[in-house]
């Protein structure tokens, strides 16, 4: 790999992963806030309104960080991946432009309203929340349509000069790949938001503050989290795995660390891929499980990596294997934890079970790891292709942006984003410390307090 290509890849991976820490909470929280605002509208309940206001403050802060870190991604298609933009712009330009036109204006307009929500009546606040929910999920839809096309190209033709162009917009927007990807990804955002809401509730309850709010947070977080984390595994996770094994068996084999084609292939729960011996070191394996999951047959034959040419293997196999296992492992843990929490909530035990509350509180960070690992699974699994089967990543950088420039900006982004991360942690803990009862935090009690 040339150094410019390495820096371009690292820069995109870093900025995209960092960016997506914010929108995943934005989208999931938009859904929960819409539920809360609807309840406020229907019941006029002051407690629910306080809960909604508290989470709107965190939503707004989080949204802001998502906005400023999102712009570099669209720009980088042009700045660092010019040959890709030129080659595939005839297809992905459609979905990216539609996101700009349909989603961004909705989001920014109604965020502006929500920031100054105290001036507006409850129905207007409800409407703004609904529009933000629609806008952010629409944004997710167009971005996933773009990614789904890169994973599974449809509705295109190759022109005489080798560039690709869309032949059916409907085909592009209803890419079969997109269905499970959208369902899985959007459910994951609800898992993230539920974990965060439940964790703040657990934190307040354990530290003996804002008890009534804490219980509401826990009820919402646990119920939504239990439903969403269940849906993550079945049907959405299963649906995604199914289409990978059907359309991209090499990617599936790499996820599972299956080096050789086997009948009755096992599922590795843990172990380290060894590229020297082409085996998994220290494996813990469930025999026959992989064959069963893919073909509903304990003895079915599953293609291993040895069935494919080496130059079509994903280029960072161990990282891909770990990313997949971290995602799947954490997903399973979330479903168990939330299942247990839901049971305890239903039986009326939860608010007294300290150890479970501790687990729920610590759980706030893990959906971010699971989601990042999930996206690494999708994107590393697509390598060495940028557009699966059509275009190799190594042919796609900007021809005249040399490695010195790419490294310069990569270092800049890393420094800047570390600063952003510190700021975000500082400010979000500030909001949590101020608590949900003061509508305006103490620092803004003066007559000239300001935005959110």
């Amino acid at each position, binding site marked *: 790999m040339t150094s410019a290509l390495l820096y371009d890849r690292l820069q995109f991976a870093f900025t995209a992963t960092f960016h997506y820490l914010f929108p995943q909470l934005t989208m999931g929280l938009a859904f929960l806030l819409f539920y809360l605002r609807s309840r406020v509208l229907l019941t006029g309940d002051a407690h629910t309104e306080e809960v909604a206001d508290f989470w709107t403050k965190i939503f707004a802060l989080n949204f802001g960080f998502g906005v400023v870190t999102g712009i570099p991604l669209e720009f980088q298609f042009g700045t660092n991946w*010019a040959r890709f933009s030129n080659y595939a712009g005839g297809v992905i330009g459609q979905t990216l432009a539609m996101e700009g036109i349909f989603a961004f204006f909705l989001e920014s307009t109604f965020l502006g309203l929500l920031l100054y929500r105290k001036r507006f009546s409850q129905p207007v606040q409800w409407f703004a929340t609904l529009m933000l929910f629609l806008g952010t999920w629409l944004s997710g839809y167009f971005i996933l349509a773009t990614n789904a096309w890169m994973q599974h190209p449809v509705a295109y033709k190759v022109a005489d000069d080798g560039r690709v162009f869309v032949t059916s917009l409907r085909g592009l927007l209803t890419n079969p790949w997109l269905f499970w990807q959208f369902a899985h990804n959007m459910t994951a955002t609800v898992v993230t938001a539920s974990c965060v809401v439940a964790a703040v509730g657990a934190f307040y309850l354990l530290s003996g503050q804002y008890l009534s709010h804490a219980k509401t947070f826990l009820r919402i977080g646990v119920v939504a989290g239990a439903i969403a984390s269940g849906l993550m595994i079945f049907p959405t996770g299963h649906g995604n795995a199914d289409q990978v094994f059907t359309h991209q068996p090499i990617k599936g084999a790499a996820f599972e660390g299956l080096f050789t084609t086997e009948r009755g292939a096992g599922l590795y729960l843990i172990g380290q891929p060894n590229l020297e011996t082409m085996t998994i070191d220290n494996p813990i394996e469930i025999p026959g499980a992989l064959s069963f999951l893919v073909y509903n047959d304990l003895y079915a034959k599953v293609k291993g990596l040895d069935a494919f040419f080496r130059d079509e293997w994903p280029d960072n196999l161990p990282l891909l294997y770990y990313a997949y296992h971290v995602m799947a492992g954490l997903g399973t843990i979330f479903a168990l934890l939330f299942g247990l929490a839901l049971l305890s909530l239903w039986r009326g035990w939860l608010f007294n079970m300290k150890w479970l509350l501790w687990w729920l509180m610590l759980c706030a960070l893990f959906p971010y790891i699971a989601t990042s690992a999930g996206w690494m699974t999708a994107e590393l699994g697509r390598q060495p292709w940028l557009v699966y089967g059509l275009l190799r990543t190594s042919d796609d950088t900007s021809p*005249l942006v040399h490695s010195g420039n790419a490294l310069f900006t990569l270092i800049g982004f890393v420094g800047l984003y570390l600063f952003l991360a510190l700021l975000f942690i500082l*400010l979000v803990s500030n909001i949590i410390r101020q608590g949900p009862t003061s509508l305006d935090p103490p620092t803004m009690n003066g007559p000239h307090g300001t935005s959110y």
Partner: protein
Amino acid sequence: METTWFIIVTVMLAMYVVLDGFDFGVGIVYPFVARTETERQTVRTSLGPVWNANEVWLIAAGAVLFFAYPKAYAAGFSGFYLALILVLWLLIFRGLALELRGQVNHVLWKQAWDMAFSTSSALLAIVFGTALGNLIRGVPLNEDGYFFVPFWTDFQPGSAPGILDWFTVLLGLTSAVVLAFHGANYLVTKTEGALYQRAVSAAWVLGWVSAGCTALTVMAVPMVQPNLSLNFTRHPVVYLAPAIGIIALGYSLYFRLCRRDLSAFLASCAFIFLMLSSVMFGMHPYILVSTTDLMFSLTVYNAATNSYGLSVGIVWFVVGALLILACQIYLYSRFPGKTQSDDAH
């Protein structure tokens, strides 16, 4: 169809400069006109609900450029690599400054974000003006349709230019002055009392400086890019656009004298919109002019996506444009008149 999308991109970019332009302008005059904490609060609250909706015009315009002219997007964004990454970093600071200043009640925290707000606004205004200068002057596209410009070479707009030369720097400074004038006009419509008086004085002075800078720019353009007038010679009636633009600038100053604040602001909107549209009219059909060989230039024809893409795009764009219009009207109508300085929320 290729030209239709050129018009759409032009209008979207011009809308961006008119709308986010007053945000930059407000940022530039902010340290000079707002002296007390209350005044600073009012100034930033006047932008609070709208700046993000203004900024998305840039992202949407960029995405439409990518969609309609992928080749030009690829060449332009990779060629201006350093300048564009700089723009990204500045946009991050500008956004954070507006979002975060009120989050912590400490005088140093506020001062830090005030400085970040003004500095990033001023630099963004300069960089975008410089970018316009680069488009007019042309860039060293090679036969593959790519280029890369460093920040500077010898500061001359020759065949191997840098992002900065005397011409683009002139446009950068003109842009900063004009947007500061525009931002002051916006502030006048939003403020009262001493702050209002200072914004009025700033707008008055900056209006005259804008007129001077515009005159210099209009004289400099034919020296650097004589071809820009070809389309005007072919269709002389279009000379009306820049002419009305200049008249709008004059009217803006006139309205300032007779205290018709909203008209003065709308006149500076018209001035900026018409001047930018005139430049783009002169550019057509070129998107990126090559200084190496005119043959290597990217035009609306050789950079466009296929005809199916362009026509299906019109269908969704019409729907989308109505949505944008509805959103923008709704937003601005929700925050009319003078900004209340005490709207804690």
